[in-house]
């Protein structure tokens, strides 16, 4: 079973500077063994002292991270492609920037800790944004502007006039139109290089894992708790980092949940009874609030992809527009968490409408 393997820059000293080699193996494990026999020293660069692949090294089989498949036991077939990407300096994928892209991203490329290498990492990244509304609009605009290669959008609603003050992806001519389609058009008008993948469906227990699986980072930009808990649980089960935010009236919250380091249920173990939770329709939401929090979600997502700065993991950022104040409180993983704790009781997706005590969505 012969498979093409894409070799990251730091490993090429072992392959005679070749970026692509062929190796044999029916599974990823066997493939890596063959790479070691062809290029001694490969194992030492890949595995840590405990014989495990450290979290900063990602291995993809046909574009899917193997941790979302069967790990090292992921089966391979003739013609498959395996890519090894260490998420550290020198791990940028082999993407050649065009002259236009160098110009487009020039203000980012000159930034410290960004460079063309960072730009290539963004262009290879896949981010899923759940919702193209108040938070989703600025998140998507800034991620597209920064050149994230693939943006998935989960959105099934149509644009209404009450959306327009804050849902800046949509315009007057989009009223009554699919928000997913209108989002795709607006993003393409800014940056046609971005591959916008639409998931024009209501995220559900039946489809969430399949949708989330193909992405590197998930950004919930939703307007209800049931979907928040659904996205959270899917991210925990699939070990995806999640950049969470929520807004109401003049306030916003934002944090980052990294796999194994806490989740939304650690923060809010249970939803309020129906009727006890104010909504944007009932309590209002100032348009500026998601306009502030959405770009913060985009920034945290970019930091995760580039591996720079300190993300909000372990911290809950609180924004108060009236006081014009940002505060932080410390949050942590709950060992008793139902889904990410030491003894999880939730090991598959549940009925989240029932969990939140709301009528089922359409």
């Amino acid at each position: 079973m012969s498979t093409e393997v894409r070799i990251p820059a730091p490993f090429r000293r072992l392959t005679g500077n070749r970026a692509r080699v062929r190796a044999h193996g029916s599974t990823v494990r066997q493939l890596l063994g063959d790479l070691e026999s062809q290029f001694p020293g490969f194992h030492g660069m890949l595995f840590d002292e405990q014989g495990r692949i450290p979290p900063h090294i990602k291995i993809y089989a046909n574009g899917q991270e193997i941790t979302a498949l069967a790990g090292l036991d992921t089966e391979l077939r003739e013609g498959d492609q395996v890519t090894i990407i260490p998420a550290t300096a020198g791990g940028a994928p082999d993407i050649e920037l065009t002259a236009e892209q160098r110009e487009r991203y020039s203000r980012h490329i000159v930034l410290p800790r960004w460079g063309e290498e960072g730009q290539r990492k963004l262009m290879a990244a896949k981010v899923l944004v759940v919702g193209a509304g108040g938070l989703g609009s600025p998140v998507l605009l800034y991620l597209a502007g920064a050149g994230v290669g693939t943006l998935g959008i989960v959105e099934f609603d149509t644009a209404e006039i009450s959306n327009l003050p804050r849902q800046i992806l949509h315009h007057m001519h989009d009223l009554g139109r699919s928000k997913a389609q209108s989002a795709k058009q607006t993003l393409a008008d800014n940056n046609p290089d971005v591959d916008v993948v639409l998931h024009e469906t209501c995220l559900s227990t039946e489809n969430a894992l399949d949708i989330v699986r193909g992405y590197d980072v998930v950004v919930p930009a939703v307007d209800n708790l049931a979907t928040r808990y659904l996205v959270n649980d899917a991210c925990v089960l699939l070990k995806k980092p999640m950049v969470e935010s929520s807004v109401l009236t003049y306030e916003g919250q934002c944090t980052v949940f990294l796999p194994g380091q806490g989740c939304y249920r650690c923060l809010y173990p249970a939803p309020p009874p129906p009727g006890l939770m104010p909504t944007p329709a009932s309590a209002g939401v100032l348009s500026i609030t998601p306009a502030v929090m959405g770009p913060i979600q985009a920034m945290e997502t970019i930091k995760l992809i580039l591996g720079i700065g300190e993300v909000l993991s372990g911290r809950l950022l609180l924004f108060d527009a009236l006081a014009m104040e940002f505060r932080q409180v410390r949050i942590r993983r709950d060992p008793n968490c139902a889904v990410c704790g030491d003894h999880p009781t939730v090991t598959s997706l549940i009925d989240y409408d029932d969990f939140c005590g709301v009528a089922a969505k359409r």
Partner: protein
Amino acid sequence: MSITIRIPAPLRSLTGNSQTVEGSGASVRDCIDDLEGRFAGLKARICDDSSELRRFINIYVNGEDIRFLSGLQTPVKDGDELSIVPAVAGG
């Protein structure tokens, strides 16, 4: 004894729209009872019928979640800051 208590937006209708109030008490629970005495109805929004903290609301003392300290029995002292932070749903 003066403890700064930050009131989240959904509860400010009960505190005359004040986002910060001064409170007193030796513990978080005492502070909540003190608040109830001055702003009737506030406790029921924070605690359930068993007087336990509702699971969609967190309280932080000086930035630390009381669930990982001593819960509502977490001691507080003069100069401490107590933040009430509920889950919000909007996006």
